């Protein structure tokens, strides 16, 4: 089974970060969630088995109240410890 992984960079509306986080933690197939500084607020790493699931997942994130913008970066190759 191949695994498709992706980073999703998320911008949230001011004041909504806490509630977006709460909802994001409930989503399936999320590997990690990081709150970061800079022009994006959240970086979420996900792992799904097919591209269609990735679409469903991004849909789910976009439906969270307070999410202003998402940018999905599908991982083509990864080296890690």
């Amino acid at each position: 089974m191949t695994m498709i992984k992706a980073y999703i960079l998320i911008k949230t509306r001011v004041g909504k970060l806490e509630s977006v986080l709460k909802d994001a933690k409930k989503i399936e197939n999320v590997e990690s969630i990081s709150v970061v500084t800079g022009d994006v607020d959240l970086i979420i790493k996900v792992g799904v088995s097919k591209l269609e699931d990735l679409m469903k997942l991004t849909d789910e994130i976009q439906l969270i109240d307070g999410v202003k913008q998402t940018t999905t970066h599908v991982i083509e190759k990864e080296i890690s410890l």
Partner: protein
Amino acid sequence: MISIRIRRKYLFYVVAILSSIISSITVGLDTIITSRMSAFYSPDEVSWIFGFSAFFIGFLISTLIGSFFSIRLNNRRIGSLIDPAFHGIRLIKREELKYHLFAGMGNAITTVGYFYVLSLLPDPSAVTPFYRVVILYLLIVETIVEKNAPTLIEFQSSTIVTLGAILGSISITGDIEVVPLAVMLLIVNPGWVLLSIYQRKLKLLKPDGKPNDSINIRIWNLFFTTIFVTAFILIQDFILGTNYLAKSLEGSIRFFWLVALTMGITFFSYVLYIRALGMGKASITEGVRASIVIFSIPVTLILSLFIPIPIPQSPALWLIKIIGIILVVLGIVSFALTQVTAYILVRATPGTRISDLIENIWNIRGVESVAAVAGKYDIIAKVRIRTLIKGYERIIRRLESIPGISYFEWKSVLKEWENV
């Protein structure tokens, strides 16, 4: 629905500390067994006999526990409560064999040495602190293997842990034993390093694309360790004309239930330890496990009710021991809590080969993962360092010298959750 219930960092501490509580209990049991065995055999013999029976009986007991864990309950294996990656006992895969051989050899060396020390020095609270010095060895090995040079903080805290361990261990009778100390430092600790590094590699290995589980790793480790211990004993018997193998078999039968008890408990301690290894770096896991020093004192006190162990009478000795423990705990806390994580989002100049670029970024120390991605950016790297200054000196500067990067952004991570 799977939700991220617990921050990985905390789960890591829970697992590592549980493992150390359990193992301090087994050290107590080990001491009782060694002292019982000493009534029948000489110290040299005890270490080999206990070593052999521990692994031989340990393998049997762990396989039994493993089979019990393989039972399905509500469509889930019972063992998945302890390690979610567990899917029943299985044979080892070819890619695991090499690591298992090294881990088994490490375990054989460290355990026989440890039993030898116990037979010379029947006091768990004096022996266990020396195990903690292993953190220094691990730091050195990680520097070489995981391309991670120790920072001042790592150096400081491991020195504090080591000094604390020494203070904690010399105090109980007031003197320092040279032979056990040398065996601990030269035989037991290097063996442990070998064991923990290869167990970590095994845990991070993904046979068939699925994460490896700690229960199978432990069972197979016992199998290979038994083989190594038997081989060591046979070589000795052959060269020195001793009769250790026969005595070991006899001892295994005579002390079957006691050894089975301690190895049964040890099984859980190890499974938790291997899980913790899969979550954190080996030196940090060791650091947390240093809390065993704290639990070894009540264990020693309880034990002294059953077998003769000299308990310090003077308040000065107690003071030294407590100072040692405070140092160990302080060292661990500063070690484990100082860390900075960041993402670096990179855009490449057109005409650059991305595969070369990710190799170049991967070679920077402190880089935990690099991914070539499709989207607004070309590469997303994750870095983990001790201080922000290191982030500039070690990462930004190196990044700027790599050709082919047109733009990058540093995103410091404020808080992080990981699904475990």
